[in-house]
């Protein structure tokens, strides 16, 4: 593994970590940013918090594994998302949108979709913490 190119990243809350370049490049944002920065181990700042980044890396790691079957990946995804609470899931969606990883972005959005399909407006307000500013008359449209 020492022959793999490594990248140092720094999260929004000041945490530094090192990642294999190949894995980090699953994020288009990171990939594009590295073209502008010298390879001198100056950490690349990314606008994600460490908690969320750990989850992202966990996902990337599993999906980079060699020889893993579709079924195993599906099971992993199911478990992975099941353990996330709404707030963590939303953090993840925002972070992945920033990181520009299409695969994980779609997967995370689908999870949010599952959570909100079939819910009543009040449940939606609870999930997204929206104020109910709709008056009965304005609903007639």
């Amino acid at each position, binding site marked *: 593994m020492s022959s793999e190119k490594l990248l140092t990243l720094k999260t929004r*809350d*000041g*945490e*530094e*970590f*090192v*990642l*294999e370049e190949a*894995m980090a490049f699953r994020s288009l944002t990171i990939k594009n940013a590295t073209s502008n920065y010298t390879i001198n181990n100056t950490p690349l700042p990314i606008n994600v918090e*460490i*908690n969320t980044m*750990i989850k992202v*890396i*966990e996902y990337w*790691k599993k999906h980079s594994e060699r020889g893993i079957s579709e079924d195993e990946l599906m099971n992993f995804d199911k478990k992975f998302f099941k*353990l996330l*609470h*709404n*707030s*963590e899931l*939303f*953090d993840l*969606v*925002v972070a992945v*949108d920033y990181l520009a990883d299409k695969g994980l972005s779609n997967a995370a*959005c*689908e999870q*949010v*979709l599952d959570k*909100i*399909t*079939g*819910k*009543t*407006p009040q449940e*939606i*307000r*609870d*999930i*997204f*913490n*929206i*104020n*109910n*500013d*709709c008056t009965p008359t*304005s*609903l007639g*449209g």
Partner: protein
Amino acid sequence: MWLKHKYLIAENRLVNPSKNIIEEKIVMIPSKNIIEEKTVVIPSKNIIEEKIVVIPSKNIIEEKTVVNPSTSTKKMDADRAMKIHFPDVIIVDILSRLPVRSLLRFKCASKFWRSLISEPYFKTKHWNHAKNNQNFQRFLIGQVCPTSHDKWLGTMSFYCSSVSSVQLVDVQKLGCPSNDKPCGYFIVCCGDGLSLLRSPNDYLLWNPSTNESVVLPNPESPRTFGSAYGLGYDTTSDDYKILRIESSKGYGSNPPCKIFALKSGSWRKIDNHPRGYKIDNHPRRPYDSEFVVNSLAFVHGAFHWIIKDNLSKYFIASLNISNEAYGEMPLPEGICNIYNKLRYGVSVLEGMLCAHCNYRNTEGGTFKLWVMKDYGVKESWTELFTIQETQLLSATPICRFTDGEVLLYYNWARYTEYRTSKGPYRLLPASAASALPYRFLAGSAFIKHLFCYTESLISPKLLV
């Protein structure tokens, strides 16, 4: 990968259990190796019930406790959610993947969401996602009330359902678009998220998903039974167009062709196909005349139908929706040269142009179906299957399911029926009819229309 951390936690136990206990996953953060599991922290305050994440290098425990949602976390999540700035673009992205039913409900979540969902940009984004997605396909069903079976002004009820190859599922009653009682409209065709209805007096462009509709003007010429219609969206002019080809009855060999471009607000005549005239689908039973499905196949930006030239040769005519230019394509080999009492048709199944023929001989009725795998390439006509039954008069393809089954409308000697290769298509959900809040009749004799359409938010009123 490895994390640079200052703490070293021994595996599976706390180094500093001064206060509390972590009950769940503890992970070590070794100075070198790869992290195998979820990071956890040493709390200095509260009891952690589940995983917590910490930034030990700062030696602070942030108040990011996440509690098991089954115990009053709603407030916790809501508080947490407040701190999240959820960019609009992500909300739009997520909402654009939702079924229309959910979106119509979420319009009342807040004023902002309502304006978001009503925006034309959002409707287009939603449509672009829906049109390529099997999950947004639905059936549009027109059921006639038996008491007015023999009257021209039949009382129609409309329903929609999910598309499943086993039976109708998730059947919902739709309101009559014009609020007429009784509802005197028939479904004429569906296309690109909308459907066209007609009554003796006028036409209606209807979105079955949102129940929005707009009345369209009548063309000048009197309408005959057996007219064929096509409805499609033209990307070049960013407009919907309706093509109407009248029945050849009463017009000889040159029935009028008219096009209605929604933005233009009026019908205009176009030239007939240079090489031949359209053949009619004649109904087998007189009382079915007004219900005969006469939609033109719309695929690859063109309407298609069968025409016959003056040498009695049959082929497929096409009219490009953008430049309104005619074209033609040969039918598959082996479809044309069988018997006299032969009926052809074209349809669109799973986005591909298909041709079929029905014929009868002493042994019974035969139905054959071909699909054109490469649009426009004559050699790509591929036979899908043949059906032979003694009592079969004719069959018409309705749609193809994701598992490959084709739904057909069978015209038997004594009755009509919807079937797939597995057998009769169940029109009634497994639960008893009496359990349904509306009067959905099981017999397919009453189901006069079964069309496939795509859910959409497209607003007919804004198109004209």
